[in-house]
Structures are given as C-alpha cells and as structure tokens.
C-alpha cells in the first residue's frame, strides 16, 4: 500500500469544486493547457477528470500519460498541484455515473446545460501533490 497523497485538506479543496487547469504535453514536447470542470476523488491514490470535448488533451495523454492539474483553494489562496499519470477511461460504472450527475449540476449552475456532456471519466494515478502559496 503506497503513501496517502490525498489527505483531508486536499479532499476539501477537491470537494469545493473550483474549476481546475489541466496541463498535458504532446509526444513531441508541446504543452497544452485547458480548464476542466471537474476533479473527482476516487480514492487516496486516484483521481478522475471529466473528459468532455478537449480532444487535444486526449490525444496528448495517449502519447504521454503524464499531466499536471492545478486547483485553486478558495479558502487559503493556495494552488494545489497534482502530478498525475493517465490510466484508463471509464464510460460506465459508479464513478462515471456520479461524475455525470455532478457535471449536469455544474452545467446548470454555469449556463452550460446542453454543452457540457461527459464522454468519459478519465482515471489517473496520483504521483505527487504539492501546495504552493496561500495563507
């Protein structure tokens, strides 16, 4: 059993639901940045990210599975940096169903109903979590 990387403080930030940024990198070394609506806690070593329509990210993670996600902590102003490795995409099951329901709520709250649609729950292994800045 590995070290727990997602502690209670990190789970609080994830649960707050702040939009996050995902940085991927193509096989030939070009970074790609995109805002993602959802970071979903799976367990202490895994997160799921919503795959909606950012096809460049999907192409990149197929070439290079290493990505970085940064999520802003609205309580402290810190940035939580997750170093992740893509494992697989799920299009059914408990994680997918829960994320689909959450995404619909996010879409409704942000005027994006009919635009946000979950294509897959992408499962990532958490390699490292770093906290930068904040009070």
């Amino acid at each position, binding site marked *: 059993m590995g070290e727990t990387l997602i502690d209670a403080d990190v789970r609080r930030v994830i649960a707050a639901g702040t*939009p996050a*940024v*995902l*940085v*991927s*990198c193509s*096989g030939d*070394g*070009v*970074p*790609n*940045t*995109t*805002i993602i609506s959802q970071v979903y806690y799976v367990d202490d070593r895994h997160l799921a990210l919503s795959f*909606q*329509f*950012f*096809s*460049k990210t999907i192409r990149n993670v197929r070439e*290079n599975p*290493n*990505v*970085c*996600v*940064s999520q*802003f902590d*609205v*309580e*402290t*102003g*810190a*940035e939580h*940096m997750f*170093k992740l490795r893509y494992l697989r995409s799920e299009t059914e099951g408990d994680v997918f169903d829960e994320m689909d329901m959450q995404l619909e709520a996010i879409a409704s709250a*942000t*005027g*994006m109903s009919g*635009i*946000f649609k979950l294509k897959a729950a992408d499962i990532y292994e958490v390699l490292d979590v*770093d906290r*930068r*800045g*904040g*009070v």
Partner: protein
Amino acid sequence: MLSEELVAFLSNPVVGYLGTRNGEKFPEAHRVYGWRPSQDRRSLTLCIPTQLVGNMISHLNDNGQVAVTVVDMMTNDAYQLKGKASAWGEADPQELEVYRSFKTSFFAALELKFGEGINALKSAVGEPITAVTFEVREIYVQTPGPGAGKQIYPEGA
C-alpha cells in the same frame, strides 16, 4: 499575432494559467496574475508570483515551450496561446505595475461576485513577481462548445 479583440479580452480580469514542461515532458501549471502584449502584438509578457513558479525556470531553461489558457469565469469565454519563451526573470518596474493593476481589478471583480469572503485571498498573492515573455505562435478558441479547439492564429492553419 494577437488580434485587437484578444487584446481587449486580456484587458478584463480573466483567469490565466501558464503551462510548461521539463526535459522528460512532464508538464506543470503556474497561475498568472497579469499580462502585457508587446506593441506589435506578437509577444506577451506574463506576471507570475514567484511563490508559484515551482520548476518553471528550469523548464524554460530546458526548452522554453509554453501554453497559456485565459478564461473569463463569468462568461466561460476562453483562449489558449502557445509559443516559445524568449525572456524570463525578476519583473521590472513596468511589469510590476502590470501585476499590481491586474491584481486590483481581478480582486475587485471577485469581490463583486463573492463579497468580502475573498479578503484572505488578497493577502495570499504577493510580490516578488517573475515575468515571462513569449512569442505567440498559435492561438486557439477554448470556449466550451462546438468551436472549442478551433485554431484562429495563424489564419488558415
């Protein structure tokens, strides 16, 4: 080149993130607090609180590859700019002014939406500031919807 429309967009208190990567192609994100287009609109200077730069400097020394997402959280309008960094280091007085002006307008916009609950955040972001200038080589629309991913610069690419 940045269009006049995009320069106008960047004058709003939008959220920005810079992406870099190391020699093993492991990427990293850095929150941006302010930007200034060059007079010819071919490059953009970003202001990043030094406490948030992480491994950015070593990444830029290694390869200089950058991508920046800017998003208006009120409208969800978003763009991604890609290019290669040409200069980086401690912000000069003009760049510090860009950062301070952005911070003032950004937190004023946040306060309108979230009230005084954001007061703690104001003190969480501070100087010194690191500035990164890059030549803009590609621009993409990232606004959620069917147009997401469309390349708008260079035209016809």
